[in-house]
């Protein structure tokens, strides 16, 4: 049987992590092919709804990464993003969402190796977790099944 290959999305900022991933490339550091990068101007632009959408569209893991504190190209976008994540994280925690599939990181433009390691770690961890069936199940709960649930 073929081993499960997790699908990973990375939401990254243009100035640090996107450039860090570029550096991993120019340094020819090899890492797992599972990751797809979506470019944002800044971590401050990253909407938590997009994280949910990524899971809905079949991602097994999501990486969100940007500039280290104090390094933000726009000075404070990452600080605002960090606050948003603190709150979002608590909400997911309460809901029992499988937070092991959501990864937050700071990767600077100089940290090509850190980026490669991060991707590999995430792929390994999510591979162990298996496909995100819980979310898949959720998408099967539709209008028709509501009647059943209400009767329970």
């Amino acid at each position, binding site marked *: 049987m073929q081993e499960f290959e997790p699908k990973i999305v990375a939401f990254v900022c243009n100035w640090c992590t996107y450039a860090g991933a570029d550096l991993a490339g120019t340094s020819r550091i090899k890492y797992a092919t599972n990751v797809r990068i979506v470019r944002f101007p800044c971590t401050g632009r990253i909407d938590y709804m997009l994280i949910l959408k990524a899971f809905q569209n079949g991602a097994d893991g999501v990486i969100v990464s940007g500039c280290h504190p104090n390094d933000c190209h726009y000075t404070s976008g990452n600080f605002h993003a960090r606050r948003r994540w603190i709150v979002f994280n608590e909400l997911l925690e309460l809901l029992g969402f499988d937070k092991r599939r959501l990864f937050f*990181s700071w990767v600077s433009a100089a940290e090509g190796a850190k980026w490669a390691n991060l991707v590999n770690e995430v792929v390994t961890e999510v591979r162990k977790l298996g496909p995100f069936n819980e979310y898949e199940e959720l998408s099967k709960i539709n209008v028709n099944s509501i009647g059943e649930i209400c009767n329970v």
Partner: protein
Amino acid sequence: MSELINKIRQFFASQTIDLFIGYKKGRFGEGKPAFFTKPEQLKELVFDDKCIVNLAVYLRKPELKKFSKIGILANFGTLRALLQLAAENQIVDGQYLIFTVVDGKVLEFTNLKAIEEYVSKNLPKPNPERVALLKEIESKPREERWDWWTRELSSCIRCYACRAACPLCYCEQCLVECNQPQWVEVPPTGIGNLEWHIVRAMHLAGRCIGCGECEAACPMEIPIGLLTQKLNMTIISNFGQIPGTKLEPNYALSTFKVDDKENFIR
């Protein structure tokens, strides 16, 4: 009560106010929101602990635009909602004459600054039963929590009564009505329901004044108030900003500290 009614009569007589929003007795003994435009209607006015509806929810209704100065009989949640609405530029100070009754004594606020002082001195401690319930849910294993919430949320029929009852859900076009892109699935599906309640909780994080109207309004009796309550507790303990206590904007999610915690960031 008669003291209050007399006062309001006088304000009507001197044309200081042309509308008074309060409560009258409903069919089940509950306090039902009531709009008084004439002094003689005031005999119906009641105010007791069954008057829980947050009257601030009406202030942004277009129907109220024609009134020049409005009197409000406010419970504590309404007072806080007024402050938060002012901080969010939604109501104008000076347009309202606000009353509340504490231990039989009528308090009158001619401006919002006075409410700010009153609220900051009288902030209640969180309801211990609710805190215990939250704790109980949080102590469950993650998978159980997920199952519990998915089951609870799956009964949501997306009537948006929670939104309508909330004094701070005043957007003219809610995100769920946006279809380019379609941020939240319209029919009450598993994912759509989860997304809606995440959106609602996140939009109220740092703004929710904890009046509990959302949960009270839910026809399916989903404990959605827990979500906003949890986020508020997170925000207060992490950032120290308490919604609905300040006239100036003090929104936790549009401010930051350099040393906010980041133990979850790799």
